[in-house]
């Protein structure tokens, strides 16, 4: 099967995730949309690995997963800390740098 449908699906998922990051106000949902974008990129990595016939793309997807896991751990800890001090998980409430 041609690789084009996989890449188009990856592009659609990536843009839906990007819209979610821009539209949503809840920090945790924004984070989930970032995860969706990372997953969409992984799909194109795996697809291109099949296209080129070597495993480098799959290795790249594997490293993306590792980095995403580390990023989720630290990011959720930061969200927890912000929630503890402000009693809110909304990205609009953490606006101290604005003033």
């Amino acid at each position, binding site marked *: 099967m041609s690789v084009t449908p996989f890449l188009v699906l990856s592009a659609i998922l990536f843009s839906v995730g990007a819209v979610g990051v821009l539209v949503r106000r809840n920090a945790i949902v924004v984070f989930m949309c970032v995860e969706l974008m990372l997953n969409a990129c992984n*799909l194109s990595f795996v697809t291109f690995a099949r296209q080129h016939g070597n495993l480098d793309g799959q290795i790249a997807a594997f490293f993306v997963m590792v980095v995403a896991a580390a990023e989720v751990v630290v990011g959720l800890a930061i969200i927890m800390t912000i929630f503890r001090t402000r009693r809110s998980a909304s990205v*609009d409430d953490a606006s101290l740098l604005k003033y």
Partner: protein
Amino acid sequence: MIAFWVLAPVMVACAIAMVMARKAVHSALLLAVIMISLAILYAAQNAPFLFAVQIIVYTGAVLMLFLFVLMLVGVDSSDSLVETLRGQRVAAVVVGLLFGVLVATAVGQTTFGAAVGLQAANADGNVNGIAAVLFSKYIFAFEVTSALLITAALGAMVLAHRERLSPKATQRELAVKRMRDYATTGAHPGPLPNSGTFARHNSVDTPALLPDGTPSELSISRVMRARGTVRDVSADRTLAAEVEDDPGQIEGGDR
């Protein structure tokens, strides 16, 4: 390749619903559907190792972490619908649509030729093939990854740690404080009242009734009131009162 055409519409629908869902828990569950579908697509593209890693790391670990944090952050984590910047939501959707159409068209216009396929690379197993590349060509990146993971674990511990500012109150101090509150403000020193136990409802969302018939505020968890799932028992009470006033309206009620 039937798997792709079955899963792709499901994934796109789940992604759109995830962005639009009001409650964060629904978003997390829809994301789980997308991740499992992605794992199946990996398996369909000769990547069994990534299939397993996707399910174990993403669906198993990352999403459970999301659910744990949602549980800690609590019920008021639903989104506010107030737009801070006027027109930002519409502009974001338009820009996202344009971006998606652009990339999809660019990919659709490109001719990739026939896919080489991974039969040669996976000749002695996908896991063996990945290991051969990972531990030779990418060994330095692999070592750096270990440093990254240790740093992330340390960072999470530092961020989640809360310094105790005052010593932990002992049982005795708590009892003294409770009695002092009773002496000064008249707060009830005993435990909180149970939820109501009635013939029709006996679950924790049913408030107990005080002697004058009003629901007791203390008998219901604060979280349930914030969610708005407290059952209204006043209608049942009036029915009971009517029956008490006029027992004849119950069929066969010849007492």
